[in-house]
């Protein structure tokens, strides 16, 4: 499936990555090459084959519903770009 520049901009928006015109052009060429590689898959007949997500047939483990974490708010927020009164600061979202 051939990509065009509008696709690149749409995908970049979905991925929340700002992209300018020149970057979009360069990305179009590189991504088209990679998709060309991926297209080889389409020649394979996969009818009836169960998709594989994990090499071992394991089931999700369950654990007791108890608190295991301790409060480390200050430590964890020490990596945040902007905090105040224990809260993460972001631009205003509600007028």
């Amino acid at each position, binding site marked *: 499936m051939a990509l065009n520049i509008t696709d690149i901009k749409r995908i970049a928006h979905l*991925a*929340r990555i700002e992209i300018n015109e020149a970057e979009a052009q360069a990305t179009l060429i590189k*991504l088209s090459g990679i998709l060309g590689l991926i297209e080889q898959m389409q020649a394979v007949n996969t009818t009836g084959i169960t*998709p594989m997500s994990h090499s071992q047939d394991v089931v999700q483990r369950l654990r007791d519903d108890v608190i295991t974490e301790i409060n480390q708010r200050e430590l*964890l927020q020490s*990596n945040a770009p902007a905090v105040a009164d224990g809260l993460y600061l972001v631009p205003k979202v509600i007028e």
Partner: protein
Amino acid sequence: MINSSLKQFGQMLAKKEISSVEMTQTFLNRIQQYNPSINAFITLDADKTLAQAKLADARIAAGTAAPLTGIPIAQKDIFCAKGWRTTCGSKMLETFKAPYDAHVISQFDAEGAVNLGKTNMDEFAMGSSNETSFFGGVKNPWDFDRVPGGSSGGSAAAVAARLCAAATGTDTGGSIRQPASLCGFTGLKPTYGLVSRYGMIAFASSLDQAGPMAKSAEDCALMLDVMAGFDERDSTSLNRPKELYTRDLNMALKGLRIGLPREYFSEGLDANVAKVIEAAIAEYKKLGAEIVDISLPNSQLSIPVYYVLAPAEASSNLSRYDGVRYGHRAAQYDDLMDMYMKSRAEGFGAEVKRRILIGTYVLSAGYYDAYYLKAQQIRRLIADDFVQAFKKCDIIMGPTAPSTAFKAGEKADDPVAMYLQDVYTIATNLAGLPGMSIPAGFSNGLPVGLQIMGNYFDEARMLGVAHAYQQVTDWHQKAPEGIL
């Protein structure tokens, strides 16, 4: 001293010939001497490192030392280590200080090993040359014009230049084995689920696996003894009895069936690399192994499948970097959406963005069945190839990489050419099987790695198979000129 095995380092410490502080300082001095040119380490913290060495010395004096107590180990900068800057090779995490320890780090801490520093890597482990690191490329100690491989390029260069006793790496598509091949040492990617991924910064969760990078199979066995084990904090960690990976090091190879997949010796393999691999196979015949012709008919689909699954999982995993709770935030933005878009545009490098975009595309509405589901179906075909192959043989061998180390810049602008570096390693990640690379000789002065693949949980036997070869050859003892 620097070319010693882990066992020898341990004996020196036990006999008090040297203290852990002195041993650690020797390596820190070497790092100070070589790192400005090689760029193997992103973060060093001599105070933290030497404090651990002091604790190790006390433990040795108290007579409670474990096999790796006091031995300096370099840690790939993908593992969170509490209080250490942990960058994953990205501007996004340039100032991130890990608030907790990865399982691998806490296992080494419990062993009393010394964290020597955090090693350079391709950004978010996406690359095969270490050239995508925000902190700059790494030199291959065998030839400074060439790349060390990737993504665990810093750990690879550190082992090759003897800047550490051993190192850790992670392998999603070949990131332990390909650099081990290009830098001439022993590296092992365990069975998926054997080593906990807790605190290991995620790239493609269904493929990521940590493993040892060291000079010999024996060293890798000692490292894996520390790293492997059940951890309930990783939902894919396998709950099985603890093994001793050194147990089969002295096994006899008589009657061992070694399968050679036709597809790994065809078009695309450098002729000189092929010669080295054939010579290694001949050595195994002399040791009593039997050679079996096998086929992995879907192996050529590994790369297409990988470049759907890995980017898809990466695009999901990397959505957490939004500039809110940690990581890079743009200095200027209009609103919340603009903050996300600018922070991610500035924080991620070109290759990481490409993979996020590919992943976003293949998972976007209407394309799921054609790409992600299809790739998961072919993934099963690839895994089934191995199931069939292991009915005919005990171990599979072939080249680790199609060529020796290439020149820096040679493939940097051609992602598809770069992806082909992992043509022989990706299939085992997709199948979840263990694979390793051991030094098998040289081509034009550059190291060549022999790949050894085993069945699920067959690490002890693979290490035994590698060790037997290392008892009759000395490729694994070789170091770049001027290093020893």
